């Protein structure tokens, strides 16, 4: 087990004038509404425990009022917790003094905001360089570095515009560039794409995924949109009323919701778009590994199926039918299996989303072979499994 980069341990947040006095009630499990009625204190977060690994996109999702924005603000202590620890890279953020906290915010974490949080009185390039300005970097280096990021997010030529002159999508690109410009290894994104039009939003999601493939940052992403969560997340945590309801890989949450709440949540999700082949496929079977036609026939008979996937040390080679093999065996059973014998059956990659392989799967009469980047057979996808997952 690797050590997580960020570890949230027993985090509680109570809003009100005297939060400490309310803590015993919270810990006794008194409902949120009763505590509010009795003491006037609002329970924001209750016993949150999370581990976030390096290089992940970790999505925290929940509806409004679930405490997700409160939670993300604890990571860089924009909000002080009532109780609990936040360990980043072995260091307890709660123990930091004012100076230490400022250094931590400057160098370790950067943040992207829902309504962008750009400085209206600074130009685009000055906004991107803001983190560096705070760090005290000189003007020339700052401009050079900010210029690079401006180009990466595709806003070259907008250097000297003011944020109000840009569209929402462009403004958020500036927000993203500002966050990346400080080279912090942790990126906090608070509903970063929620204020954007659907089309622009999915464009931004693509761009984020693309950037992440190059940069391998650790991203904590807040959203209320499950489709977005499933699309971006390596792992997803679901919050409800300040409590963690379920935490796991996206497919896990989709296929095995822990509570009725999560189930209601995932019900309307377009599974064909959210799930990949990998999560649905059957483990590899019916593998033919022998060299000659006769031996292959022999092996095929042990499967009780009339087909097989021919694999060698070099990986998956092709799809074989019993009838073809029998034909060929009549001529010369000792001949090696060769290209000409394979059936015309497409193979699919494990990380394609189901939506894309539906046509192939429907046309084929046999389970499609799933082949990874290295050419190895990872499994197969029968039409029945696909239908089962999509109709469920």
């Amino acid at each position, binding site marked *: 087990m690797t050590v997580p980069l960020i570890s949230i341990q027993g985090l509680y947040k109570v809003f009100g004038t005297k939060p400490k006095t309310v803590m015993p009630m919270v810990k006794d499990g008194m409902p949120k509404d009763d505590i509010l009625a009795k003491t006037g204190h609002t329970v924001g977060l209750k016993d949150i425990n999370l581990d976030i690994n390096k290089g992940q996109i970790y999505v925290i999702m929940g509806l409004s009022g679930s405490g997700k924005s409160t939670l993300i603000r604890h990571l860089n202590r924009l909000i002080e917790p009532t109780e609990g620890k936040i360990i980043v890279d072995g260091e307890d953020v709660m123990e930091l003094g004012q100076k230490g906290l400022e250094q931590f*915010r400057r160098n370790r974490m*950067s943040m992207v905001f829902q309504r962008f949080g*750009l400085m209206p009185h600074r130009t685009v390039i000055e906004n991107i360089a803001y*983190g560096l300005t705070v*760090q005290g970097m000189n003007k020339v280096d700052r401009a050079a570095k900010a210029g690079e990021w401006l180009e990466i997010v595709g806003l070259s030529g907008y250097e000297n515009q003011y944020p109000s002159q840009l569209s929402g999508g462009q403004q958020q690109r500036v927000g993203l560039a500002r966050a990346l410009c400080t080279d912090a290894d942790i990126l906090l994104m608070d509903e970063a794409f929620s204020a954007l039009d659907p089309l622009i939003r999915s464009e931004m999601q693509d761009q984020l995924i693309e950037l992440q493939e190059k940069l391998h940052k650790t991203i904590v992403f807040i959203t209320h949109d499950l489709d977005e969560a499933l699309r971006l997340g390596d792992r997803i945590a679901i919050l409800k009323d300040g409590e963690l309801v379920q935490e796991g890989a996206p497919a896990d949450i989709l296929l095995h919701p822990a509570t009725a709440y999560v189930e209601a949540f995932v019900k309307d999700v377009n599974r064909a778009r959210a799930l990949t082949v990998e999560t649905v496929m059957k483990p590899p079977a019916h593998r033919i590994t022998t060299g000659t036609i006769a031996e292959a026939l022999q092996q095929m008979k042990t499967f009780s199926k009339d087909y097989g996937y021919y694999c060698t040390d070099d990986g998956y080679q092709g799809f074989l039918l019993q009838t073809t093999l029998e034909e060929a065996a009549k001529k010369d059973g000792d001949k090696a299996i060769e290209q000409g014998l394979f059936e015309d059956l497409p193979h699919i990659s494990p990380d394609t989303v189901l939506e894309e392989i539906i046509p192939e799967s429907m046309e084929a009469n046999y389970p499609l072979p799933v082949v990874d980047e290295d050419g190895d057979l990872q499994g197969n996808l029968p039409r029945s499994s696909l239908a089962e997952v999509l109709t469920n």
Partner: protein
Amino acid sequence: MSEANWLTKFPEMERSDLLVIRKGLDGAYKEFSRSYGEIIEGLFDPLLRFLVWFEKLLVTSPWWIIIAVICSIVYSATRSVKLTIGVLIAFVLIGYFGMWENTMRTMSIIFVCTMLSIAIGIPVGILMSRSNRMQSIVTPILDIMQTMPAFVYLIPVVMLLGIGKVPGVIAVVIYAIPPVIRLTNLGIRLVDKEVLEAATAYGANSTQRLLGVQLPLALPTIMAGINQTIMMALAMVVIASMIGVKGLGQPVLKSITNQYFTLGLFNGLAIVALAIVFDRVSQAYGKRTQKHMERAH
């Protein structure tokens, strides 16, 4: 009968007791001004010297240099040829009607009062915006400063410092400073929370937040406060002239007591002209610092 008396007549304090209080307070203040008056006057000495120097500068410089300087300030702040020509005409008329020297005196004192108000008011406004306690202490003081009749606080100032320029400046500043304090406080409190949060999230310390985010974003509101402060300072010119401040106020005062309608009108119009110049210039300058607010599409 005596029991029911308090129902019809307010149960007042005994006249003699009141006299004791008044005598006591007056005596104590007189004592105070007698023993500390000179020290306090000494403290204001640099201010007085600056006032005299600045007034002399404006009065003794050739009129065409002054007009050229004012017009170039107006033009560089507003970039408006029309306004600049208007100012030029106004000052030429002021000079032609023989009010040049008084106008220069008034301008010098208004300028000094405005600078003092800004120098004191903005820091106080910043402090107020940072703590609610500070706000709840300062707000009633500002209320008193704005509603207390100016003559009332002129009395102790004159008792302490005599009549002249310095008490005049103090009276004007007391009357004119509240808007700049109030609007600095308001402007900073109205700064978009998310922008401020963004600055904090990137590790800005409180100085960086104040100078880099809060003050620049509050600037339009602060400029409105400064503008109001200037207008109120001009409104005090006549009252200040009662305690010996020379300028456009004195002829106005003279025309009240002697019923010189035309003299009063001319000097009044000169004050209005000054007010318009100060107002337009400060507003145009405030707007020009906000050019990022214009939308391109």
